[in-house]
């Protein structure tokens, strides 16, 4: 008999590897890069924004958290990768698994000089207060001067989209992270400006960059003297 469900929690999910893999896979677009690159012995395709992050990293440890960073580690083995879902370990051995951000400082045996969270699906479905809590956990593994790259999508965060100026809302939040000793150095907040065509019709596109997120921030942790010139 068919069961009618409204949400995931209302029925038991299969626990086989294939199901777990597909659940992970369909929410992580950049896993596709890893699949593509595995088949090419000479060339590696990398995402444009990931290349910007790497261009802006300072010397020292680089960590990609929850962002399919293993596709980059295949190219630069020095990159460290943390994922939240144990299924990743079944297809990519050399990752740290951290299911709960509060455990991150216990799991990583080093402090970090560059920390990137790029449109991680597990980052979504919270308010800006929830994001602040996540970020506070990340700062526990940062060395002073750590560069922090953080990107999200506005459409998957809790905000009253009809009563609040979202651009102002997310920018003010980023600036407010000074309370965590994170200084905002660069940001890009892109809401698609809809302009009607000659027939008066609007497009129905999503906001820009569904892969990396339309809310992009770069911060420096505990260092007001970093003369970081962002390279885009």
């Amino acid at each position, binding site marked *: 008999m068919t069961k009618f469900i409204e949400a995931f929690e209302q*029925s038991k999910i299969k626990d086989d590897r294939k199901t777990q893999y597909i659940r992970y896979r369909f929410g992580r677009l950049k896993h596709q890069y890893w699949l593509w690159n595995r088949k090419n012995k000479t060339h590696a395709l990398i995402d444009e924004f990931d290349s910007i992050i790497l261009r802006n990293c300072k010397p020292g440890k680089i960590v990609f958290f929850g962002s399919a960073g293993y596709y980059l580690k295949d190219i630069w083995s020095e990159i460290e990768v943390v994922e939240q879902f144990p299924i990743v370990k079944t297809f990519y051995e050399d990752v740290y698994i951290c299911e709960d951000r509060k455990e991150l400082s216990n799991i990583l045996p080093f402090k970090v000089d560059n920390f990137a969270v790029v449109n991680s699906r597990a980052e979504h479905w919270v308010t800006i207060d929830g994001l602040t809590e996540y970020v506070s956990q990340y700062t526990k593994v940062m060395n002073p001067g750590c560069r922090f790259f953080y990107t999200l999508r506005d459409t998957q965060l*809790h905000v009253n989209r009809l009563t609040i100026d979202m651009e102002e809302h997310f920018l003010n939040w980023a600036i407010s992270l000074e309370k965590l000793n994170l200084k905002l150095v660069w940001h890009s907040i892109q809401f698609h400006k809809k302009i009607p065509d000659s027939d008066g019709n609007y497009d129905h596109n999503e906001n820009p960059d569904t892969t990396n997120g339309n809310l992009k921030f770069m911060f420096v942790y505990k260092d007001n003297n970093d003369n970081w010139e962002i390279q885009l």
Partner: protein
Amino acid sequence: MDLSHPTKTIVINKSKNLYKWSKIFNRLQMNFFKEETKLRREKQIEDFIYLNEFKSVMLVTDTDVFGEFKNTIQVTTDPTKADIVIITDQKFSRYPCPDIINRIIDLVDCCPNLYLCLNRHYINIDNSYIDINLAPDFPLAITQWLVKELPAHQILDLSLNYLDRGDYFTWAIPDRHYLIRKND
């Protein structure tokens, strides 16, 4: 760390699209479950059509919903020939707020009943509309916005009220459900 020595020649992707799953969202997600499952919202709409004896239905969808059900009803692509227009297509939610309102008016001018599903997460996609007089509770604010902007229409909110944490299949069938008709 020296990033100048990659193991392969690097090509920066500026044009190749990553695979997206939106065309099979519903089936893909239902296959995760041990039991045979069906989205309750999908059943709700199907039963709404059946129990209210709508004869000719225009379905506007963007993913794999109403599969077998389509074969049990008379489907039309012309709103002027439909008893009811059902919209679950997410794209409708991605128009600017004033354009959503204009499209609703146009559709209800053609067809007496509109069952509109809006994805709350796309509303005001372009951040161009602000009304601070709407309720702080976002789902209620959406309903208030529709009622305010459509004074010549009856707006009946058929949605459930809950906090969406991404586990409600909103990208198969959007979460905000409205029956919209002209006032008598």
